[in-house]
């Protein structure tokens, strides 16, 4: 009888594994060469690799296990391990980044932080499998080649799973590490809500071992930092997942320094994944990754501001022309239900890109927007800590760009003295954010002359100004805005007499809306391009 190839075995058992794990949406795993690990091509090579949800089992790894464990069982154990990363830990990119950030706080080193995160994620997903599913992972770990860390991990597994993995306390590597193992056994690995705390405890306990391993590595005696079944990195995630993860991390941490640190630590991987600053959503190759700009970009994506549509004069009506992927926060009305399989899900859902036809007519849409942002000394430096002014402006830019409008930026401090930066109407997201994040830190004066060329000749245009209103020539600004017919959204940060002066001056102008931002929670209340409605207008007015 012809012997089955490993690929055939994978295909045979994959339906069973999928069923066992309640049908995760993962493509059929394949057999191949896996880079990474200590010595590729030998049994020291790592077991599997996950790239954009595609699991690849290492053929060399399986060869190394021959004679020790039945091939089918080894493959199933590897698949269980891989699927558990997808279904339980780390689950998504945000969780992975979060775990890494916590580990790095304890380890104080990028590489050691990544190693700790890898080991922790492995312990959690393996333990989850052993507890919840019928799996041969313990048997697999029995036959893996072990270094000092792996020996300790095996001792830990033996204790927490209650299975014999052939690790004895008198083993050469574990000897002296009983204390570490004892500490590791006390961690609630399966309690997701306590993972942040758990990984810190895990890191503290394992730190001496990893430092020792690092020393050995330097002297050429140690093994590399890879986990036996493969490391976790950004390759495992799609661009949409990375987008979502960064967005969540920016929103939940709200700390610019922390976000910057994480992005800088993953710069290489992010670039490799095609995540630069060129192209939409912060992706593409080319320029350097600017973590600060990325922070505001991702944070702005979390706050979706509504833009009131207005009647625009266009040459012709729009008609559906081509498809593009739908992103979280994009309008739903252009979703093509047929090609999206009736699902609203990033990566699956598609929207129609509309193209203007020939002819002339009036349609409803969002006009272009001119954003004026104050970056004087009285404002927070957006590159040092979270600036609500820049975040507000970034949210406004994001809202208009999502509606296929163009955005111009006027960043001013002491404009008559040259403290300004002007960006003409553009749909280049990263350029817009770069100008928004610029900080001058000088006096506050606005040069109306600078605004005139940007406003002149544009019938359909919205203005968005965000400032603390401590502008030395506030009267000139009030006078200029007073003569405009365009919709103006003015946002002030904090309260001061200048705000009251501005408020009083524009209270009768229905095209100017004023919003206050004191906390981050105020940002979603901004409505762009709102024309004030007077409910209490008397008869005849």
């Amino acid at each position: 009888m012809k012997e089955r190839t490993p690929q055939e075995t994978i295909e045979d058992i994959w339906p069973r594994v999928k069923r066992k794990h309640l049908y995760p949406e993962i493509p059929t795993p394949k057999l191949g060469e896996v880079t990474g690990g200590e010595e590729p091509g030998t049994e020291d090579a790592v077991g599997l690799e996950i790239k954009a949800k595609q699991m690849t089992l290492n053929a060399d790894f399986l060869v190394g296990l021959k004679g020790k464990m039945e091939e089918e069982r080894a493959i199933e154990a590897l698949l269980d391990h891989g699927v558990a990363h997808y279904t339980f830990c780390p689950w998504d990119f945000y969780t992975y980044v979060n775990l890494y950030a916590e580990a790095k706080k304890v380890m104080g080193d990028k590489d050691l932080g990544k190693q700790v995160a890898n080991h922790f994620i492995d312990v959690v997903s393996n333990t989850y499998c052993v507890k919840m599913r019928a799996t041969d992972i313990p048997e697999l770990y029995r036959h893996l080649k072990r270094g000092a860390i792996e020996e300790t991990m095996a001792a830990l597994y033996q204790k927490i799973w209650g299975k014999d993995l052939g690790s004895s306390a008198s083993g050469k590597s574990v000897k002296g590490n009983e204390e570490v193992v004892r500490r590791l056994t006390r961690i609630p690995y399966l309690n997701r809500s306590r993972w942040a705390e758990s990984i810190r405890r895990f890191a503290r306990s394992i730190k001496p071992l990893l430092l020792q391993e690092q020393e050995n590595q330097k002297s050429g005696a140690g093994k590399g930092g890879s986990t036996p079944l493969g490391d976790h990195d950004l390759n495992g995630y799609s661009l949409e997942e990375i987008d979502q993860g960064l967005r969540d991390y920016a929103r939940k941490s709200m700390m610019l320094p922390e976000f910057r640190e994480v992005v800088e630590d993953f710069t290489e991987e992010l670039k490799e994944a095609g995540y630069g600053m060129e192209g939409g959503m912060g992706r593409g190759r080319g320029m350097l990754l600017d973590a600060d700009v990325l922070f505001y970009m991702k944070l702005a994506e979390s706050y979706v501001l509504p833009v009131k549509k207005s009647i625009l004069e266009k040459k012709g009506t729009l008609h559906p022309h081509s498809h593009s992927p739908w992103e979280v926060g994009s309008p739903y009305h252009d979703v093509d239900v047929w090609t999206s399989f009736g699902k609203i899900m990033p990566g699956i859902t598609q929207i129609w890109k509309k193209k203007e036809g020939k002819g002339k007519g009036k349609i409803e849409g969002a006009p272009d927007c001119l954003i004026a942002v104050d970056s004087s000394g009285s404002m927070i430096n957006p590159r040092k800590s979270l600036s609500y002014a820049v975040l507000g402006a970034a949210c406004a830019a994001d809202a208009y760009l999502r509606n296929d409008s163009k955005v111009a930026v006027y960043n001013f401090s002491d404009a008559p003295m040259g403290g300004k930066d002007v960006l003409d109407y553009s749909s280049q997201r990263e350029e817009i954010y770069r100008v928004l994040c610029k900080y001058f830190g000088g006096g506050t004066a606005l040069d109306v002359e600078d605004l005139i060329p940007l406003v002149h000749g544009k019938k359909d245009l919205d203005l968005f100004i965000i400032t603390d209103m401590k502008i030395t020539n506030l009267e000139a600004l009030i006078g200029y805005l007073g003569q405009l017919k365009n919709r103006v959204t003015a946002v002030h940060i904090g309260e001061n007499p200048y705000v009251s002066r501005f408020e009083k001056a524009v209270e009768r102008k229905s095209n100017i809306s004023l919003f206050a931002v004191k906390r981050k929670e105020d940002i979603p209340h901004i409505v762009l391009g709102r024309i004030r409605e007077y409910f209490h207008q008397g008869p005849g007015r």
Partner: protein
Amino acid sequence: MKEQSSKNSSIGMELQGREKMKASLQLKKKKTAASDGPCVIRSNPFQEFDTYVYARKDLPLDRIVQSTEVVMDQIRQGYEKLLEEEAKELVWMVQYNTIIKAYEVAERYVKEIDYAAEDIEDFCFAFENTQKIPYLIPGPAGLYISALCNYAKEEEIVLKLSELKTEINLLGFRLSKGRRLVIEGDAGDFTGIGLEGGELVVEGNAKNWTGAGMRSGKITVKKNIGLHTGEWMMGGEIYVGGRVRGLGNIVEGKVFEQDKLVYPGKARYPNLYY
């Protein structure tokens, strides 16, 4: 009895209801199959999960974590009771009487708990990392941890305090002979006071009044030490790896700075050493 029987009957009715529902569903299924013709097969997509066996196992980890949580709760409750009794106003003055009294209270709670060295470590970790412990008041916290160390089964205890943002005072209070306490990180004021023959090692710095009133034993501070070091110490040795900022009024005992004997030695004025 009545309640039980009515409960049983309601359960019975519920089961009957379910059976009926199942039967009617099957009937409906048959009917639709019949009406739609033989080629239409409608199957429940979740049908195959009827035979799915959910193999959830109890692991030793569950037991370990559960018992650890129980002990941690007891330790935490003990600390909260100590705070209730000793620091009602959240201000705690370090005075001879208050220290003795608070330590006695701490001893009373600690004696009732069955814990291991790792529990003490977890308790210290919880100060900085969880919201479960309401207040870290360095004085009572130090006394409580000292009591935990003095009544632990293990003779050697390592406290990892390097991540704590607040230094804990009074660590190693009355550490008895045969016991060794290693503090990874910095210690606060009054470290190792009243030492009773134990060995206290501070991997980082220690603040003022270290070793005050110690009777015997050894204190090693790997980095620097503050003012009033060894005030009224009656015996024992203090080894400092870095600099001694100032010595106290020492009665008896030895103080070494970077392996050099600084007390007893040349006449020095207390607190004017540097």
